[in-house]
Every structure is written in structure tokens, then in C-alpha cells.
């Protein structure tokens, strides 16, 4: 340091002087800030002392959160699907209860309190401020209310509160279509906006309720309530500081008359139905059965009852429409056919002789026809693509499937039909299904892709599995002659929604060779023959004609599928013979769209262990389409 000082004495002194000046400036600035702060403290502690003294000693201001009303959900015609209703609930204010156990004792003499409710209360109380009322029992009956009112004097800290809960007007009929809310759990608290959710008990758990949670929720409001030293509100009216802002209301594409018709058509059978408007991609109906009543789940059900919902063999909580994975069976044949035409591995006029059996060259493995019997191998004789679709020839599609490279077929199904991927704009699809590829098989089974795998993939069996939503999407693409629309729930809303990043493109044509337009059109025609080709004699009619095509007043295109069930029993499960018989029966599938020209609806139906696709699933698909195209006749039938 000594050297540097000697090196530049003059510079150093001027530097020192400037440093000293500037230090002084900062100290003076600091002093001014100190004066400001002292002035502020004088203002608060001396000048306004009495006002604050009053607030602190005689009164306490409590700021209460006002939960915003959740946005409403309407169907496409403006019919209300979900709103909010008020129930009376019993709540405790922790800071006003001296002895919780004693209070529980007293309460349980007046009203029924289950151990489950007490456990849930212990859970709920954690992490909430001590002056917030915590709900103990919901949906009090009139009698319980009266009991509480009479004994009010020795129930300190007990309050009866109005609680607003979600109400689904159609209960279990729409639960898998629009989803439900669920109570906020402890695990949610970390990820939620604590301030905005301070008064809120519910968040979207599934479906639209979940996807549009931020918008449906709205913004919390607040009011200040004066309470005296013992915590009782004083007479003065609570003062609203900020009003809550109601959540956005949503209008969905769901058409309640269609949803109800689909629900009725499926009846008590296990399965799923998805209907899409091919013009917009709007999901018109989405049924999954069995289902459960969300209203009971929200108010009445206790923990054990909820548990059985989760463990029941038929899985009512499981939304088969978006989560269920099924082999598509023959409903996949139009996809294979279009891929083959696009790849030019076949043409409309190519004829395959179907004598009921198919063998790969140099292999002894025999692949069979669906219409084989104990005495005959079945088969459909000379078939071209058109006939292969309306007769659902397995041998034809074994042949075509063996010519198509699995990755080429997979890519076509993925890109053009949305198989193997999440396609919807606003649903949480938890699974993509399985779209096999060479790489997939290598990494899953450690085995190469065998030619035989391609043969059965040609008829939609083997490793392939799809969700009903994906099947309906594929039907939509067929209806649109190859054009892509993204399936979606939301039609419009009363304000801009944060979830919508950009306006989704409704419908996009795909650039492809000119001859493809003709292929799509002929595929649609072939599918209409499935339904309408009749009176041609045994084994010459469309597969579904006898079941739905006899009296149909419009043109409908369809394709049936009957998928083998490979695994039906779960580990450690005992079934009697009758049950085993039922759970091992084939799944029945049907995809359809109508009218043939300018389609207005595309449908996919899956009936678990339903049996034959044309026979069982076909009429269900027709019932849904009838509800769309001929609403009056449906009403007439029902009456």
C-alpha cells in the first residue's frame, strides 16, 4: 500500500477528498431517511395512538375471506349442468375452543359424529389460521340444526355456517362428461395460491372442472369483521373490503339431450360412448359406465363409502372414455385401409381370395376369419377393399397388414387419426393408449417386431390399444374425409380464460396427393355399406345391416369391431363360473358417423364384454345418432 500511496500522492488526496465528500452525502441522506421514519413512528405511535389503541384493546378486526362463487357450466343449448347450492354445516373455530375432546363428547350426544368425520376434521385443521372456522359435519338436517340451536350456550366455539358446494344437476349421468370438483387436500396447499384459495373448499378434480380450474374459481373477496375481546362479532355490519369475483361460466359442446340418450342407450352395461361434432371437434356426449353420483360424494358420503368407489371391481371412478384402453379390433380396419392406399401397397380393385385362413410365407402359423365355425373355416370369397370393409374380412386385412411396415402404419395412425397421442384441447387425458412400433416393442419386451405382429395389427388386435375418445377422434377424421379437427369441450365462455393460450384452429385440411380425396370418399362409402347394404342374401350384407340398417331414415357410415379380451381377472381374485364367463366375453365396439354427406356427428361405442360389435354396440351408436339427427322421433319413442 505504501508504494501505491507514494506513486500518486496528488491523485490520492483528491480521491480522498472526493470520498470524504461522498461519504458525507450518504450519511446525510441516511439521516434524512431516519428522520422520515422517525416522523412516521411519531405519527403512528403518538399522534394516532388512541385510534390504534382502541382497535387493539377493545376490538379486534378480523379479515375474513369471501370465497368467490364458482363459475357455472352450461351445455351447448344453454342448459345448466353445474351450479352451486348452499348447505348448512357445523364448524369449529379452533381459537375459541378450550377443550376439543370435551366439545366432541358433548356434540356427539346431540348429533351423530362418525370416527371418519373426526379424522377428517383433524386433517382439515392443520395449516389453517386459528380464527378460521373449520367444518366438522356437513349438510345438517333440520333436526340436527334444532338440537344445536337449543344447546348453543354450552357449545362455545361451535358455529353453524352456510357452505356453498357444487351441485351437478344431472348427477351421475354427466359425471364423466364434465368432471367434478373435490375437496382441497393438505397436499394441494403447497401448489395453490394461498391467498386466493383462503375461503375455498373445492378445486377441480377431473374433466373440465379441472382443466378450467383457474377460470372457474374466480377471485377471493374479503370483509373486515369487528369482534370483541372474546372473539364474538360486534353488532356492526361487516364491511366489505373487496367483493369476490365470480368464476367464469363455461358453455360446453356437450348436448344434454344427446348425453341422456347415450346414457340410456348404454343402460346398465359397462362401457363408454364418445360423440364428436366433426365440423367443430366439439365433444357432444361422453358417457362412461358405471358412474357415481358426484353430489353424494361431495356432501354425504363418508370415507368408507368413498373407498369402495375406488376399489369396486367395475371401477365407477374410472373414466373409461378417456382412461380406458381397449383393442380396437375391426374398427381399426378403415385406418389400415387408408394407410395402405396412401402407401400404395394396395388399390381399390385389388382382389384377395378369402378362404378363411391366412399364412405368412414360410410360416405354419394360421390366422383365421371371424366367421369360422366348427365345420367351415369361414371367409368371404373374392374380396376387394370395399367388400373387405362391409364384410369385415380378416384375411384381406391380414394380407394388407403384412405388407405395411409397422412404423409406417403407426405414423399414419398417429399423425392422421390421433391414435397413440393426447389430442383434445381441454381434457386431461391420462393415457395415450398403446401404439406399437419397432422401438416400443424392443424397449417393452426386449424382442424385435415379428411379421406376425403386423398381421394381427392389420385387424386391430395384438399390442394396439386405444381409448374410446381416440376411436371417436378417428371416426371424426373419417367423417371429415381426412381433415383434422381437434376434439374439445369448451364452446364459449363469458370472458377470456387464462387456460386458452391461443385460439385453437378448428379444422385443418392435410396436404396430400389429389387421389387421396377419392380414397377417403370411397372409404366412407364402404363404411356406409356396413350399415345400408342389405337384402343381398346370406353373407352378402353389411355386417351391421340386420341390426340397425333396416329402417334407418338417413345415411350412416359405420364399422363394427369385436375385440378379444386377453386379461380379465385381476390377481388374487376369485370369480365364480358365471362371472368368469361374463368377464371373458369379447368387447363390442362400433364407430360411426352420419349423415354420410356433410356429417354432423361421429360416434365411438365400446361395451365391455358385450359380445358382437354390430349386434350390441351398433344399436347404441345408432341411438346416439338418432338423438342428434332426429330428436323428435327419439322423444316420441320415449313417450
Amino acid at each position, binding site marked *: *500500500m505504501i508504494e*501505491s500511496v507514494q506513486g500518486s500522492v496528488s*491523485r*490520492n488526496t*483528491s*480521491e480522498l477528498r*472526493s*470520498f*470524504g465528500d*461522498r*461519504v458525507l452525502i*450518504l*450519511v446525510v441522506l*441516511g*439521516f434524512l*431517511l*431516519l428522520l*422520515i*421514519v*422517525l416522523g*412516521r*413512528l*411519531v405519527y*403512528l*405511535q*403518538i399522534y*394516532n*395512538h388512541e*385510534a*390504534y*389503541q382502541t*382497535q*387493539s*384493546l377493545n376490538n*379486534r*378486526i378480523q*379479515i375474513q*375471506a369471501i370465497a368467490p362463487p364458482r363459475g357455472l357450466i352450461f351445455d351447448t343449448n344453454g342448459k345448466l349442468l353445474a351450479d352451486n347450492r348452499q348447505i348448512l354445516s357445523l364448524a369449529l373455530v379452533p381459537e375459541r375452543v378450550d377443550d376439543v375432546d370435551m366439545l366432541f363428547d358433548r356434540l356427539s350426544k346431540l348429533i351423530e359424529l362418525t370416527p371418519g368425520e373426526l379424522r377428517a376434521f383433524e386433517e382439515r385443521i392443520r395449516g389453517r389460521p*386459528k380464527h378460521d372456522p373449520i367444518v366438522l359435519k356437513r349438510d345438517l338436517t333440520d333436526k340436527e340444526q334444532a338440537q344445536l340451536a337449543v344447546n348453543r350456550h354450552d357449545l362455545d366455539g361451535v358455529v353453524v355456517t352456510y357452505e356453498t358446494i357444487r351441485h351437478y344437476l344431472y348427477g351421475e349421468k354427466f359425471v364423466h362428461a364434465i368432471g367434478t370438483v373435490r375437496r382441497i387436500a393438505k397436499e394441494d396447499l403447497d401448489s395453490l395460491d*394461498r*391467498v386466493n384459495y*383462503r375461503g375455498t373448499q373445492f378445486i377441480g378434480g377431473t374433466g373440465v372442472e379441472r382443466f378450467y380450474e383457474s377460470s372457474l374459481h374466480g377471485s*377471493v373477496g*374479503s370483509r*373486515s369483521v369487528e369482534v370483541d375481546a372474546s372473539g364474538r362479532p360486534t353488532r356492526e355490519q361487516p364491511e366489505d*373490503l*373487496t367483493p369476490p369475483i365470480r368464476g367464469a361460466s363455461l358453455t360446453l359442446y356437450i348436448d344434454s339431450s344427446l348425453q341422456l340418450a347415450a346414457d340410456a342407450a348404454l343402460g346398465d352395461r359397462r362401457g363408454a360412448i364418445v360423440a364428436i361434432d366433426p365440423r367443430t371437434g366439439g365433444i357432444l356426449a361422453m358417457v362412461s359406465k358405471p358412474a357415481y353420483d358426484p353430489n353424494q360424494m361431495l356432501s354425504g358420503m363418508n370415507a368408507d363409502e368413498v373407498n369402495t368407489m375406488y376399489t369396486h371391481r367395475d371401477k365407477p371412478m374410472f373414466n373409461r372414455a378417456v382412461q380406458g384402453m381397449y383393442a380396437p379390433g375391426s374398427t381399426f380396419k378403415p385406418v389400415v385401409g387408408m394407410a395402405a392406399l396412401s402407401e400404395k401397397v394396395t388399390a381399390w380393385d385389388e382382389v384377395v381370395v378369402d378362404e378363411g385362413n391366412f399364412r405368412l410365407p414360410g410360416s405354419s402359423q394360421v390366422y383365421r376369419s371371424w366367421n369360422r365355425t366348427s365345420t367351415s373355416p369361414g371367409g368371404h370369397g373374392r374380396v376387394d377393399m370395399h367388400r373387405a370393409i362391409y364384410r369385415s374380412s380378416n384375411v384381406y386385412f391380414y394380407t394388407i397388414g403384412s405388407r405395411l411396415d409397422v412404423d409406417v402404419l403407426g405414423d399414419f395412425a398417429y399423425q392422421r387419426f390421433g391414435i397413440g397421442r393426447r389430442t383434445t384441447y381441454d381434457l386431461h387425458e391420462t393415457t395415450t393408449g398403446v401404439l406399437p412400433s419397432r422401438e416400443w416393442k424392443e424397449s417393452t419386451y426386449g424382442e424385435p417386431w415379428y411379421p406376425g405382429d403386423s398381421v394381427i395389427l392389420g385387424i386391430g388386435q395384438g399390442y394396439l390399444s386405444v381409448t374410446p375418445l381416440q376411436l371417436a377422434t378417428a371416426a371424426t377424421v373419417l367423417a371429415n374425409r381426412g381433415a383434422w379437427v381437434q376434439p374439445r369441450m369448451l364452446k364459449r365462455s363469458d370472458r377470456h380464460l387464462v387456460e386458452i393460450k391461443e385460439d385453437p384452429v378448428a379444422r385443418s385440411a392435410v396436404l396430400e396427393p389429389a387421389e387421396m380425396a377419392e380414397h377417403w370418399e370411397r372409404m366412407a362409402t364402404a363404411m356406409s355399406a356396413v350399415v345400408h347394404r342389405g337384402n343381398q342374401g346370406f353373407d352378402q350384407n353389411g355386417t351391421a345391416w340386420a341390426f340397425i340398417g333396416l329402417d334407418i331414415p338417413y345415411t350412416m357410415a359405420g364399422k363394427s369391431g369385436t375385440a378379444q379380451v386377453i386379461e380379465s381377472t385381476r390377481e388374487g381374485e376369485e370369480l365364480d363360473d358365471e362371472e368368469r364367463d361374463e368377464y371373458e366375453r369379447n368387447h363390442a365396439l362400433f364407430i360411426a358417423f352420419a349423415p354420410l354427406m356433410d356429417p354432423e356427428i361421429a360416434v365411438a361405442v365400446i361395451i365391455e364384454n358385450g359380445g358382437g360389435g354390430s349386434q350390441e354396440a351398433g344399436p347404441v351408436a345408432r341411438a346416439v345418432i338418432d338423438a342428434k339427427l332426429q330428436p323428435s322421433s327419439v322423444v316420441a319413442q320415449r313417450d
Partner: protein
Amino acid sequence: MTDLLQPDVRNTRRINWLYSAHVDPWLVLGIVLVLALGLTVMSGTLGHAPSMLFRHVFLIFVGVSALFVMAQIPEHTYLGLTPLVYLGSVALLVYVLFFGDEANGAMRWIDWPLVPRFQPSEILKVSLPLSLAWYLHDKPTPLRIWDLVVCLVIIGIPVGCVYAQPDFGTTVLVTTACLCVVFLAGLQWRWILAAVGLSVIGFIVAWRVLLDEYQIQRIMTFLDPDRNPLGAGWNIIQSKIALGSGGATGKGLGEGTQSQLSFLPEGHTDFMLAVIGEELGFVGTASLLTFFFFIFARGMTMSRKCPTRFGRLASAGFLMMFFGYMITNVMMVSGLLPVVGAPLPLVSYGGTSVITILAGFGVVIALRGR
């Protein structure tokens, strides 16, 4: 050099060593007063949690020891070690971004065995003034533009990491104190004026052109907590009631209803001043502020007398850091500034913050020289 201890206890070798220890009695007096006042009030607030109180006392003990040790290290050792300290603190900040513990949505903490949980951004309060002083100690005044750019880079790298955690409060406070170092190093007045002018224009442009309506709304809510009485506003409303109801002389130690009844959240951390104001009144808050200013003024005087430019800049920079945190906290608690999460130095229960601050004062004493 000063007599810290009474002559009659100077009879062992250990005490002899202490006698020759290098400290500044005035600075230490101010620090002891603040620590004593803070601990007295905190023992009432944390009466229900003796283990927390014990931990706080222990950390103060460690901090005071650090002060004495740091004060003995010669100035040229600091000059030599500063680049390492800088690189070390940057490394820790980068480390914490990837492997740090998350608290309240921000990655700020390091939790290593044998060391108390700490925030690497704490270290910046000491290491960044040292680093700037190290770079500037042989540069000419007034500052050349190139030197200014280098300074901004030295500040920008660690502060950028802090901003990414995210920790907005620390970002602003550390940057401000660092800019004071650059100012003290001889930043030309016309550049200062130009910078002020540019930021005013930039602010207006951003407000009028770049920001959407909802972004402006968000900023307004931040600035005016009354709009949000459930969130940040709650603390401010309660803290004003605590201060105001304390009046001139307070409700007495341990008698503050606001803090004892948990109406005032974080009474032992960021809002400690409100507790002092409630229990000891204006007398308590004004004394505390006086002690603080005394420490600041004494420290700044010492920095003027440092024998080297490195020492001057580094110690003044640390004192600006100290004063900045103090005044920000007080303005926040009294409702003059939005809540940004700045602890009250030496007083707040805040883990390792008290160690860093006390060690920093050790550095200030060391740089003053003998």
C-alpha cells in the same frame, strides 16, 4: 487500539492476548446496545419456544466471536483473499439454484451437515462490497467507463443468481448498496444524472407502452397492500396496529397483545420492530433507530479513516448494505414500503443473518487498521 477490558483482569496470558485485540469500542457499544434491546424483546416473544431462543443466542455468540476474529486479520490478507471469496460466493449461488432447498417457492437455502442452514445470498452482504473494492482499489478517479462496466458485471453475476431464486428484496437491496460503492469510488456526476434521467424515461415508457393493464394492476397491488387485505396487507394492518397501540412508552415487555395473540405473524422475524414498538413504545423504537444510526455514522467515519482505498470502499459498502436493510425493514413495518422480506439486521430471528452482519463489522474494524 483500545482497552476493552478492565485492568484488573489482565493477569493471564489469554487475557493479555485479548487486551491487545483490535476492536473499535464505539462501534461495539452500538452493536451491543442493539443486540441487547433485540434479545430482551425477543425473549418475551419466543417465551413459548425456548429452543428457538437458545438457537438465536447461540448464533449471536458465534457472530460476536466471528467479529473479533475477523477484526484481527490484516487488511492485505483481505485484499489477497477477495477474488477467492467472490468466486466462492458465486459458486454457492449457482449451486443453490440447482441443488438448494426450496422454501416458499424459492430456492434459497443450503442445508449441509454440521453447518447451520444458510442462504448463500447472505454472504453477498460482505463479499460483494469487498469484491468491488478489490477491483476498484487501484483504478483512477473519476471512474473510466470501462471500469464502470466491469463493476456492473461483478455485481450482475451474483445478483442475477439471487434474482433467479427468486428473491426480489435481496436483489434490490444488494444492488443499491453496490451502486453506492461505485458512487463512492468516484462515479462522475453527469453519468449519475444521465442514469437517473434514463431510468425515469424508461419507467414512463414501460408504464405507458410496454405493460398491460393487468400488469399495472399487479404492481399497484404490490405498492398498495390495502388492496389485498388477506395477503401482504394483513401483516401491514396488524403491524401498524401493534406500533400504534404501543404509544409513547409501550404496553410493557411480554404484554404486547398483537404479538402474543398471534395477530402479528412473523413477530420474531421481519416484523420484530412492531413488537418492540408495541411493548416498549416510541421510546423503544426511537432508541433502536438511534443506536442503528450511531453504528452507521461511526462505521462511515471509520471508513473515511481507512489507510487504503480498498478498505474505504469495502467498509463503506458494507455499512450501506447494513443501513439499507435496516431502513427498508423499518419502512416496511411502518407501512411506508410494500412488504419485500428484509430482516432487521442484528435483531430479527433469521438464522445466519446475524452471523454475517457481525462478521461484516469485524471486517470493517480490520480494514480501519491499527
